[in-house]
């Protein structure tokens, strides 16, 4: 196992360590003089506490469009996962592989067409 993936593991460890180094360096040399105004949430230069109660809640109500695009993305991502091994093996397969993949893709293109027709691809 290690002879094949050991290096990936080392890269993964380095990927975790590398960004910590500049943060530690900065932690050593930077000044630290917090005050109340400085550490308020940024609100275009206005004092956050003066806001009415409702405006202080940063929780914005997001529209369902976000979810719909994420869903489309998930479905296409999965489709691609099946496409990849097929594409690698394509050279050694026959016409049937092409037909099967066209059927597979065709069904998903239907989904895209449905979303298009229903206006779900519009970001308004």
């Amino acid at each position, binding site marked *: 196992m290690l002879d094949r993936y050991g290096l990936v593991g080392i890269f993964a460890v380095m990927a975790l360590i590398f960004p910590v180094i500049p*943060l530690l360096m900065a932690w050593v040399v930077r000044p630290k003089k917090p005050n109340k105004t400085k550490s308020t949430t940024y609100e275009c230069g206005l004092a956050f506490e003066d806001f009415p109660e409702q405006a202080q809640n940063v929780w914005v109500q997001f529209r369902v469009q976000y979810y719909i695009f994420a869903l489309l993305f998930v479905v296409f991502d999965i489709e691609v996962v099946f*496409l990849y091994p097929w594409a690698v093996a394509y050279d050694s397969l026959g016409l049937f592989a092409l037909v099967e993949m066209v059927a597979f893709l065709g069904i998903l293109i239907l989904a895209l067409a449905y979303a298009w027709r229903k206006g779900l*691809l519009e970001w308004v």
Partner: protein
Amino acid sequence: MDIFNNLFPGLYDWINALLHDWFKGAMPADVESVLVSAIMALIVAISAILFMVLMVLIMIWLERKNAARIQDRVGPNRVGPYGLLQPIADTIKMLIKEDIVPTNADKLVHLLAPLVAMAPAVLALAVVPFGKGMTPVDLNIGLLFMIAVGSIGVVGIFMAGYGSNNKYSLLGGMRGVAQVVSYEVPQVLTVVTVILLSGSMSLVKIVDAQGGWFGLQWNILALPVGLIAFVIFYICALAEVNRSPFDLIEGESEIVAGFFTEYSGMKWGLFYLAEYFNFFIVCMFGATLFLGGWQGPILPGWLWLIIKTYALVWLGMWIRMTLPRFRVDQLMKFAWKVLVPVALANLLLTSILIGVYNGIGF
């Protein structure tokens, strides 16, 4: 030229032999071989990262100089000759800036977000074929590894947006995630074209397959499908790393600075570094997949890869300086109504053309 081509693999073999000599007899044979390969892996990883840091510093300088040239200015010219040391001065400035964390932020998530944004950029380096015999790990599925690792980055964007507990950050973060995932779809679809052309997912084999015609048999030249695939890939690459004209998640005139708003000092610096790392890496993958990677006449392979990557980087800078920012609805429409259908059609065309070419059952 063989000397330059084999410079780094030769160095690797030399250090490897040196370490083996060093540890021989001091410990059991199996411990020794594991220890030596671990040290070698560490050396490879660290040198890859240092290489990237150097490239990114040069890239930042280049970007500022380029922007200045296009906008008829001089650009940085005070620190060092031609302002060459400007990125270093920037780094020092970032190091000594105070780190401000808003009181009602989710502090842990706020701290971890830049790390999550940065880590995939380093991890992706593991599969890049830097030159002949210079691939850290030749995974069977290197291409898929690169795409999968790239998709972790969106979690970092989301964490930054959520962790700051600020309207602008949250809005920028959510928009950013929606944008990145939307552009990932045409990108992964168009990459299938490359797999079909090369018949493999190993990046090493993909580069080897582009070695004909004195190293000029690039996938982009497999007309017309290669060129279409490259254009889609490049547009998506720009959108994936949030470069202009797709930088509306940090559109300072609309949502202050998006998920960056509450970041300062080195945490902000890490986001900035991650953005440049990702841009360079995605250009490197573009060069590997479409422009023949390290293949090329006369010059050593690793130099070819650097030259090709910088060509793509420079193209990105030019686009950034020329085009205005997209609107968010145009952005999503463009991804789903133009790029995805074109990528799908291109994929079908490629598989039919290859079928005809190979004469499989037709």
